[in-house]
Every structure is written in structure tokens, then in C-alpha cells.
């Protein structure tokens, strides 16, 4: 018996949320006396795969020929892995890949799926998983009633711990079929050396308060000094001051970084829906009545054009001193 973790890669590197999925699977396996097995595809290096042992995987099954994120092919990969390992729990990260694959696996195996889980399952009375609901405004406790169970965890909700260990890497090459979707091209969001928004621990975001795209340099500077990714509010993306993939909020991407700094963003409920899972929120706004302050941990009422350059200097000094 085993607990499986689906592991995804981004340009050959294992994603942050995949490490969390492995860690989560290992914790569940520890509780149930099983072993945790990671399943992956594509181009991760053997060294990186072995290192999944540090996060609790005893074994890694890898299908190297499968390169594309083809939902039905990856569903077959997971189905075959469930059969090969006799798995009763499968863990995904609730990112674009998890959202594309986990529901298919659930329907194929008739295994109940809880997506957006934020905590470990409670197995005292059945199998109950806490998940985020109502766009972050509440939680729902879901009981999975089937023998096989699938959990898709929200990024940055349970974290990860690296210990000791090395996983055994095994080539796993079942026929995956389904070539009905033909990938034509892939466009990367982030430039070389930039942190993709969904992978970032720290995020600096700005809104209409910055008055125009020509004023973004100080935001980029602050992000660079902190080692953060950059994001923006919906109007900023709609006016094309910033690229659409930076738009966080209900219609954009939902993120859960450790730190979210919002500059010149009022904090409409639609924006909060995309960031209310952040561990610490900092709000910088000229309007002390901005609703975002109610959701913030730290706030500065002030003019971004005065405050942010000072913050850049302070962040620079902090980086030099630490």
C-alpha cells in the first residue's frame, strides 16, 4: 500500500508545490503506516528525483517520454501508478496541472476528490479534509466516502520540510495513449532569472494608484531587492500597464505567498479573493479608508512615490546586512 504524490516540473525543475505534495503524502503515509511514492513525467534530473527522498518519498516513478501536460495521458499515468503501487490516497498540488488532472483521475477511479485542501486529513472519524471555500472567505470540511481518495492541496498551506533520505528512481513507462490534443507551442511567462508568480514566496503587487506603467520601476526594484515576484490588480492588467499573467484576484490567478505587499490597491473583494491566503499582507495606500487595510497585517498610509523608494533603500540595506 502506498500514498502517491503527483510531481510536476517547470523547465526541468520540480515545482515548489510538488515538494509540498510529496511532504503531504509522506505525512499521510506516516499516519497510515504506508510508504510515499512520487510519480512524475518529463525532464527532471535523476539527482532532483532522488532528492525527493528528503521530503519523504521512498520511491519515484518517472515517465520520461511524456513531455506535455496532457490531462488524459497523465490521468492514465496516475491510474497505472495507483494499480502498480496499490495506492489508496493520491495527492496533487492545486495548481494548473493539478486542476487539469486530478478531476479526471477522480472520475476514472471513482475516487472522491477534495480540491483546495489546506490541512492534513482527519482520520479519527472517517476521512475528513479541510478545504478553502467561498473564494477564501470560509472553509468546508469534506468527507471522502470512497475507498480510494484524492486530495489536491493549495500551494503554501502545509509547507514542506527537508530531512535526510534518498528515493529510489524507477522508470515507469505504461502506454499513455490519447494524442487528440496536439501542443503547438509553449510561451513562458517569466524572463530568465525572474521568479514565476506561482512559485514565489514573496510578492510585490501594485495597482492603479501608481498612475501609469512608466512608474513601475520602483515596484520592480523593491521586488528585486526582496527576491520577490511582481503582480498587479485587474485594472492594471486590463489597461495593459502590466502583462495579464501578473493579474491576481478572482478572475486572475489566486496566490498564497508568505508575503504580499500591495501598493496603491484599494482591496476590492474580487482582488482579496486572489490573495487572502497570503500569510502576511502589507498595504501601502494614500487613502486610510482603503478596505484593504482591514485585511492587512501591516499598513502604511502614504504616497507610494515617497514610501516605495525609501523601502527599496531599506530592503537594499537589509540585504547587505544579512
Amino acid at each position, binding site marked *: 500500500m502506498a500514498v502517491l504524490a503527483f510531481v510536476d516540473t517547470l523547465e526541468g525543475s520540480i515545482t515548489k508545490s510538488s515538494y509540498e505534495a510529496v511532504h503531504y503524502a509522506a505525512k499521510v503515509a506516516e499516519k497510515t503506516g504506508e510508504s510515499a511514492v512520487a510519480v512524475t513525467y518529463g525532464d527532471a534530473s535523476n539527482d532532483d528525483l532522488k532528492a525527493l527522498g528528503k521530503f519523504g518519498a521512498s520511491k519515484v516513478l518517472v515517465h520520461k517520454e511524456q513531455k506535455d501536460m496532457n490531462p488524459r495521458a497523465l490521468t492514465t499515468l496516475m491510474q497505472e501508478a495507483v494499480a502498480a503501487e496499490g495506492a489508496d490516497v493520491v495527492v496533487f498540488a492545486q495548481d494548473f496541472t493539478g486542476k487539469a488532472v486530478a478531476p*479526471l483521475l*477522480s472520475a476514472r477511479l471513482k475516487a472522491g476528490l477534495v*480540491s483546495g485542501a489546506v490541512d492534513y486529513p482527519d482520520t479519527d472519524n472517517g476521512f475528513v479534509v479541510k478545504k478553502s471555500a467561498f473564494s477564501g472567505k470560509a*472553509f468546508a470540511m469534506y468527507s471522502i466516502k470512497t475507498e480510494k481518495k484524492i486530495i489536491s492541496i493549495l500551494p503554501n498551506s502545509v509547507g514542506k520540510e527537508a530531512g535526510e533520505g534518498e528515493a529510489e528512481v524507477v522508470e515507469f513507462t505504461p502506454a499513455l495513449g490519447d494524442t487528440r490534443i496536439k501542443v503547438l507551442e509553449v510561451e513562458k511567462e517569466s524572463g530568465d532569472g525572474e521568479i514565476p508568480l506561482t512559485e514565489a514566496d514573496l510578492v510585490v503587487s501594485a495597482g492603479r494608484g501608481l498612475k501609469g506603467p512608466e512608474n513601475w520601476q520602483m515596484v520592480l526594484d523593491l521586488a528585486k531587492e*526582496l527576491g520577490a515576484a511582481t503582480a498587479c490588480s485587474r485594472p492594471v492588467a486590463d489597461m495593459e500597464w502590466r502583462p495579464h499573467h501578473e493579474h491576481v484576484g478572482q478572475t486572475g490567478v489566486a496566490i498564497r505567498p508568505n508575503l504580499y505587499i500591495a501598493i496603491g490597491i484599494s482591496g476590492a473583494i474580487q482582488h482579496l479573493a486572489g490573495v487572502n491566503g497570503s500569510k502576511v499582507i502589507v498595504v501601502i495606500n494614500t487613502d486610510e479608508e482603503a478596505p484593504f487595510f482591514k485585511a492587512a497585517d501591516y499598513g502604511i498610509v502614504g504616497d507610494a512615490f515617497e514610501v516605495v523608494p*525609501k523601502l527599496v533603500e531599506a530592503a537594499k540595506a537589509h540585504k547587505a546586512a544579512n
Partner: protein
Amino acid sequence: MKILVAISKVPDTTTKIKFTAENKEFDNSGVQFIVNPYDEWYALVRALEIKEAGGGTVTTITVGKEDNDPVIRKALAVGADDAVRVNAEPTDAYFVAAQIADYAKKNDYDMVLTGKETIDYNGSQVGGMVAEIMDLPYISNASKMDFEGNKATIIRDIQGGKEKLEVETPFVLSAAKGMAEQRIPNMRGIMAAKRKKLTVVEPESADALTEVVSYALPPEKGQVKMIDADNPEELINLLHNEAKII
């Protein structure tokens, strides 16, 4: 093109969420319900655009009881030709997907469209499950879709970027921002919606795989700590020493 769009009833985005019956039920008193924004703005409107450009029909499908009808009429006012309601409580995503897949299979659609998620349970599950049950390709989080004959060129969000792909109908797709723009129904649309056909069908037997046992609200956020605008260096200090995140 014959298109089926799955429409879900959800509490309005600005709803203050409350629970009742010892946190076992959602409290819908005073709540305004709307068509799930992703279903309406992106899936439904794109379906209408495709129909307007190349002909065909757009039918909506909803799994729910009678209390869904006002929201279904709203989708008809936006422009869908007719609507189907499967007369059952939508107990979980698999149950809902099984109903939609069953209806879609019997009626031979070129495409089944959904929003990328609902804003109440945020599951992103139904579209993928429908595809799997129907043995069709699934394209999730799609932000653009164009047709040449029965071949679609689609852009979807993937980790770290976007992917352009090609797929032939039939398929199932979940729609995200970029796919279309919201349409506000006009008076003529609202009047016409009252006369459009809303077919009620009884559910097929299917098991729910999960069940909500209770709800909880997040802990109250503590008081925000204000920092003097003349001394923003203090913020860096607090993030390092107090919050310990930089």
C-alpha cells in the same frame, strides 16, 4: 456548432458568508444568487460568439432544484437559446458531472463548456470529470479559442506560462479570463428569456463521492499594525524580526 454550457448558481461575489445549523449548512438568508461569473462571462459568452459567427445552438445545463430557475433565466437573457435543468440537489462535483455527461452523451454536442471554477466551492472539478466520463479531451483554464472547421486552436494556462494547442471537436473545455467579455443583458433579452424553453429532466442515478460535513469561518484578522510613512524602514525591520519572512 451545437454547444452545451454548464451553468452554476452561486452566492454573489460580495456576499458575507455565514453558516447555520451549527455550521453544518450554508446560510442563504438575504443572499443574492448569480450565475457563476466564469460560467457566464467566459464560457457562455464565448459560446454565443461562436454561434453568432458560424451558426448553431447554445444550450445551458444546470443541476439543481427549482430555486435555480431565476439564475437560469439570467443566462437565457444573456443569449442562450434554451436551458436544461436536471432536477436534483447538486450533492457533489462527481454527481453533477455524471448528470451533465449523461445529458451531453444523449444529445450529441460538439463542445461542453464550463467556467474554470465556481466561486463557492472553488473545486475546478466538474469540467474534467465530464470529459473523463464522456471519454473526450479536456482543455482546462483556456483563455482563447478559435475555430477553423471543426478544429479549434486554443490557448490555456499551464504552470509558468501558456500553451497553444490544437484539438478537434468534440471536447470539453473550462474557460478563464480572456475568453470573452461580460455581456449585460438588455431589456429585449430579458423579455425574450421568459419565453425560452427551460426543460426539466430527472436525474440519472449516480453516487456522490464526497460530502460536506461542516463549515468554518477563518479566524478574525488581528488589528493591522500601522507604520509611519516617514519611517518605512520600520516595515523591513518588522518583516525581518517580527513576521520573520524576509
